[in-house]
């Protein structure tokens, strides 16, 4: 419980920075920090494998991907980009606060909170692997197909599209 009490505000602070910081690279790095802290949270409550996967996939892949995209799409007028205020913050808050209120009301009124905190055994990787390749084998295959399609699709999207006119003068 004590690690949770320490980690939760840190996660929220990092996420708040990711939402608030004007400089895009700072926001992306704070997102990476927030995701890494969530991984630590998983580790502390006994979901070791999920924490490690979170660390590798989110911090190692997604956050770095985002930082690299920011580097590639650097605007020519970065100073002006930073100066500009975000799109209407008021409208954003008007739309966000009801959602948060509904979530918190559901949290306060919900039944599951009255459950006794059962002490689940720590996540067994052997059991996880067994389930993954027996019960959930079709889903694993589907995710494999999905990731292959995504890899091909991303490569197709991101490749340099030659201009239609530039290939005419050849020969």
């Amino acid at each position, binding site marked *: *419980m004590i690690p*949770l*009490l320490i980690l*939760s505000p840190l996660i*929220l602070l990092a*996420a*708040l920075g*990711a*939402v608030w910081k004007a400089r*895009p690279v700072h*926001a*992306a790095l704070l*997102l990476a920090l927030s*995701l890494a802290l969530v991984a630590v949270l*998983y580790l502390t*409550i006994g*979901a070791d494998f999920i924490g490690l996967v*979170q660390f590798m*996939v*989110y911090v190692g892949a*997604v956050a770095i*991907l*985002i930082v690299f*995209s*920011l580097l*590639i799409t650097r*605007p*020519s007028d970065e100073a002006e*980009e930073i100066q*500009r205020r*975000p*799109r209407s913050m008021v*409208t*954003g808050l008007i739309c*966000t*606060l009801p*959602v*948060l209120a509904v*979530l*918190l009301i559901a*949290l306060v009124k919900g039944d*599951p*909170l009255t*459950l006794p*905190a*059962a002490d*689940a055994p720590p*996540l067994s990787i052997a*059991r996880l692997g067994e*389930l*993954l390749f027996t019960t*959930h084998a079709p*889903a694993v295959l589907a995710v494999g197909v*999905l*990731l292959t399609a*995504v*890899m091909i699709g991303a490569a197709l*999207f*991101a490749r340099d*599209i030659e201009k239609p006119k530039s290939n005419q003068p050849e020969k």
Partner: protein
Amino acid sequence: MNPLALLLTLSSLLFALGLLAVLTRRNAILILVGIELMLNAANINFIAFWRYGPPDPELTGPMFVLFSIAIAAAEAAVGLAIILMVFRHTRSTDLNKLDSLHG
């Protein structure tokens, strides 16, 4: 406050922050940052209910999170590829400038 309530509150706040980022950011890549925050909030819920809910030998929560992480990675890759393509056309990732289908 029990740990489950704490984790669910954390996840609600994280979701709201992600939603705020999606609604207020101008840079398309930072909107993706908000989406990642919201996905993480959902994952925290799954783990919290698995850990502090009734015992579940089928490990439904962690299993769901594994697939969710895989699909989130795929979504980020495709999203960023699309943003790169748009950037190549318009030299900008500012969504306020992307108001024409002609590119």
